[in-house]
Each structure stands twice: as structure tokens, then as C-alpha cells.
């Protein structure tokens, strides 16, 4: 397979096209502008369409429209823009439309900054209004981002649900070699789509249920899908966990930096490992829970003030103490900083 050196955002866009994405609706916001820019050239080469929307609100409602006719569609944004996309993401979840959304996170709150951050974990995993979940995939490299984007389209179609790629500004902005695999040949039933009612009754794409019993039934139906995701779609990477007494919990770029720190600590004889959630929803609870009794302290490392740590604590039911180390505002933790944290915990555990 051909290996290409690509910028993260462009690689994400190319992966989407190769997965069959025919439509992209976007709005400029740093640090993800290369995605709409790339799509504005690329989609017309494959018979698709690109629209620069008037706002993130409009862009996300446009993907609702294209998904309703059964086409593969994507939008992307960064943190403040994602807040504006929440409206239509909730509608997509309610109307059971397959859409893929990329969030290249930056710092917040408010306008925040434009440097890498992981401050949208909550927004991604506890999204929007109403009872719903997006399936959230968190890549730690550009190769993984490419692979996950291709998977995202299949997962969206399979579950008829929004799938979110949650990456930080580093994934979006750095360049790495990538290879693109062939898309799967999976075929999905789209008989629900609004393609014109030829030889059938009209189809309706809708998230309104005025009768309480109907809406309760619908909520339960959606949650059966989320339960299936929790059974079948959890992805997690465990690194050097077999004999680990200390473990780091981290996702995305932070996990990659933590891995370097883990390797360094191992050379000092510290038994430390890494648990890296790849799906943030469904959260890999079992991967944490199984180390109750083995791991003495968990260190959650994030580029936030501590958001995923809540799910880590829930996963271990506080039967393992969970400590936190975070950098925010666009500050990226160095391997040395994390190594210092590991050393301190190792001392604490040995006492």
C-alpha cells in the first residue's frame, strides 16, 4: 500500500472520501480549516458536493438533510463551533441518521484559544439536549485517525447514529506517514431514506414524538442501540499492563506522550502501564475494572482540567485511587512532566 506524508486534517478528509463520503458541509474555524479546504477541491472530483455553510448551525443541519436521503456525509469543526453543531447532532440522533462529525479540539471555555486541547470530552460524550449518545472515536495518531474515520462511516450506517471523531489540534495539524486501506464492502439498509416515494409509502425523517408513550418507547429503542455499542464496539489499547502496579489513563495525543513516559519509567524499574480508551463512548469500563486488585493507583492525564477522569472513576468504582495530571490552555504535557508524576506515585505506592 502506498505510504503518503499527510497533514492530519487533510488525511482525515481523504479518508472520508475513500470511505464513500459524497458531501461535506463546513464552516471555517481554526485549527480544522484544512478539512473544508481539502473537501472543497476533492469532493467535486468524485461527483460529490461541498458547501461552505453560513454557520456551524447550518452546516450541521445540512448534514442532517444529506443523511436523510441516505448519502454518506461529514462535517467538521473545533470546540466553539461544535457547541453550535449540537442542535443538529441531537436531531440526527433522534431521527436516527448516520452522520460523521470531526472535532479538532482547541482550548476553552468561550473563545478559548486555538492550540491543542482535550477540553471537549464532556461535550463529546455527554452531548446536546435530550437523552442520546454519539459514538465517539479518539485517535492518537494520524494513521489511526484515518482508520477510525473509515470505520466511522460504517458504524454510523450500522447504528444509524452520529459518530464523532474527537481529535486534538495536534492530530489535526501535524504531518505523519499514512496508508489508506480499502473501504469495507458492507452494504447497509437505507430503505428508510427520503429518496422519493416510488412504489412505496412516503418515508418520514423525524425526531418529534408528541405522545409521551411513543417518545418513551423511542428513548428505549435508542438506548438499546447504545447498549449494543457498549457490548460490541468498545475499543481500548492496553500497554504494558500485565504486571502494572501503576497505570496511566489517557486518550489521543496525551496517551501517546504518556506512552513515552511509561517506557522511560520502565527503564527505571517502575511497573507502570497505560490504558488508552479509543472509544470514549462506549467507554472501556471493563478494561479499567479488571485491574482492581492489581493496580494500586491510576493516573489520569488529559489536556483538560479533568473530564475523562469522571468515567475512569466510575469504571473502577473508586476501588483504585485515581489521581490527575492535566495541562490546559494549549499547553501540551511533556513526557518528562508525566514521568515525574509516575515517579512520585511509585514512591508513594512503595511506602
Amino acid at each position, binding site marked *: 500500500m502506498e505510504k503518503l506524508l499527510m497533514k492530519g486534517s487533510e488525511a482525515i478528509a481523504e479518508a472520508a472520501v475513500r470511505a464513500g463520503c459524497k458531501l461535506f*458541509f463546513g464552516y471555517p474555524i481554526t485549527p480544522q480549516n484544512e478539512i473544508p479546504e481539502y473537501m472543497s477541491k476533492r469532493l467535486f472530483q468524485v461527483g460529490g458536493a461541498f458547501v461552505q455553510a453560513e454557520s456551524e448551525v*447550518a452546516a450541521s443541519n445540512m448534514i442532517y438533510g444529506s443523511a*436523510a436521503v441516505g448519502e454518506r456525509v461529514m462535517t467538521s469543526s473545533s470546540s466553539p463551533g461544535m457547541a453550535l453543531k449540537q442542535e443538529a447532532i441531537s436531531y440526527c440522533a433522534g431521527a436516527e441518521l448516520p452522520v460523521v462529525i470531526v472535532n479538532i479540539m482547541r482550548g476553552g471555555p468561550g473563545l478559548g484559544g486555538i492550540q491543542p486541547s482535550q477540553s471537549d470530552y464532556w461535550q463529546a460524550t455527554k452531548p446536546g439536549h435530550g437523552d442520546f449518545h454519539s459514538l465517539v472515536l479518539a485517535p492518537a495518531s494520524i494513521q489511526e485517525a484515518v482508520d477510525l474515520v473509515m470505520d466511522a462511516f460504517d458504524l454510523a450506517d450500522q447504528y444509524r447514529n452520529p459518530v464523532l471523531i474527537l481529535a486534538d489540534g495536534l492530530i489535526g495539524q501535524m504531518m505523519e506517514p499514512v496508508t489508506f486501506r480499502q473501504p469495507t464492502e458492507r452494504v447497509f439498509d437505507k430503505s428508510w431514506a427520503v429518496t422519493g*416515494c416510488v412504489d412505496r409509502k*412516503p418515508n418520514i425523517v423525524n425526531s418529534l414524538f408528541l405522545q409521551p408513550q411513543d417518545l418513551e418507547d423511542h428513548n428505549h429503542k435508542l438506548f438499546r442501540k447504545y447498549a449494543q455499542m457498549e457490548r460490541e464496539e468498545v475499543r481500548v489499547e492496553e500497554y504494558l499492563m500485565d504486571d502494572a502496579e501503576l497505570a496511566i489513563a489517557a486518550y489521543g495525543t496525551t496517551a501517546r506522550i504518556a506512552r513515552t513516559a511509561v517506557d522511560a519509567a520502565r527503564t527505571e524499574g517502575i511497573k507502570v502501564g497505560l490504558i488508552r480508551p479509543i472509544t470514549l463512548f462506549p467507554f472501556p469500563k471493563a478494561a479499567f475494572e479488571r485491574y482492581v486488585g492489581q493496580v494500586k493507583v491510576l493516573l489520569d492525564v488529559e489536556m483538560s482540567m479533568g473530564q475523562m477522569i469522571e468515567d475512569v472513576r466510575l469504571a473502577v468504582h473508586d476501588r483504585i485511587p485515581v489521581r490527575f495530571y492535566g495541562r490546559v490552555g494549549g499547553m501540551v504535557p511533556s513526557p518528562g512532566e508525566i514521568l515525574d508524576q509516575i515517579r512520585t506515585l511509585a514512591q508513594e505506592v512503595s511506602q
Partner: protein
Amino acid sequence: MSAEEKIVFSYPTGLTTKNTHYCPGCLHGVAHRLVAETIDELGIREKTVGMAPVGCSVLAYEYFGCDMVQASHGRAPAVATGVKRARPDLYVFSYQGDGDLASIGLAEIIHAANRGEKITVIFYNNAIYGMTGGQMAPTTLVGMKTTTTPTGRDPGERGAGNPIRMAELLATLFTPVYITRQSLLTPQDILKAKRAIKRAFQLQNTGFTFVELVGTCPTGWGMTPSESNDWAGEKMVPVFPIGVFRDTEKGI
């Protein structure tokens, strides 16, 4: 049927037979029927997708006999953009009220018009938020009492603004191909409105088409249906004049 019997009037297939929830005297039903008749006459029911808005006509997806998408408040033109860009071979229309289109959805309608999305927008303007209980709309007339302008809409001291004239506003754009305002207040008006809607659908694949319909809200206005029709003719039409503001094919 005997040889002498001839059907001269029937239910359009563009409508379902479901009873609507509209209040007595409301003209949404008339507007729905005109759209449905157009769909029938053009023979496009099986290649038409409609957008239902938020507001009184939120349940339009249950009334039109074609594929339908329910859109979030004001976003129907954006959703329609997504549909039409994905499937340019389909006829796509949105059906929206004044709160939906002229307030929360102002950005979406202006930019859909400016991009020249090949859709038809049916805009029912009755100068009030009906569904939520009769609050001020962007099209509410000056002095008109609503539940949020209890002393009448006051553009002066209370800073409630003046009615927004959407057809005129959109006609400032270069791109749209057809923009008209009609009314539904008399049988003659209804026939004219029907011709406008049909022309909009016929021109749809040449560019953005927009039909504003002056309608009523007897419940929200606190009037009988016939008082409402009279009032709309006397008060609304002078502010929202009937006319064709753009028809590029005819050089307008």
C-alpha cells in the same frame, strides 16, 4: 361510475387523508392543498421531498403525501440544501412560518437564497407565533397586540422593531430566480397563489424560488375566521404588498 358522472374535484394525492390539527379558519390547510395540487399536476409526488418546520406546521410531515423531513427551528433551508445537493434529481420544498423563517432561521433562508439552492420555499406569514401561544413574530405589525407585546408592538420606546418584509429583503439578492408574495384571503387570491406556487415548482431547477403567503391566525389574533380574513386584507396587505419581486425569466 356511470358514463355521465365525471369527477370534478377530489383529494390531491399530494396530501394524506389525515385530519389536520389546524384551528378553524386557519389558512395553513389552504396553503397545504395548493402545494399538494401543484405536486399532483406536475406529477412529481414520487420525486419530491418536503421539509416540515417548527411551529404550527410542524406536523406538515403527516399531511403531505410525499417523502418528508422534519427540520429543527428555522433550519429547513439548510436541511433542504443537504437534501438537494445530495439528490439534485429530486424536487425539494420547505414549508415554513414567520417565526421559523424570518426570526430564528433568517441566516439559513438568506444564505440558501444567495447560494441559489434549487429549492422552493413556501413561507406562510400570519404575523404571529401561533404554536407557542401567540407571541410577537418578526412580521408582527406595529401596534399589534400579542402575548409578548401586550400593549402592541412598539418599535419606539420598547424597541420591539418593525415588521420584516422577507420577499423584499430576499429580492435585494442577485441570485434568486423567483420571489413573490401572494395572499390566501379570497378565492381569487387563492387561485393566484396557486399559480405562483406552481410557477415556483416549475422554475425550481433553475434556481432559488420563494413564495410568501399572507395568511391568518384567528386563534392567535382573537378574531373569527372571517374577521381575520378582513383584517389581514386591511392591515397586513398594505405592509406586505402582493406582487412578484423577482422573476428572472420574465425580466423582473
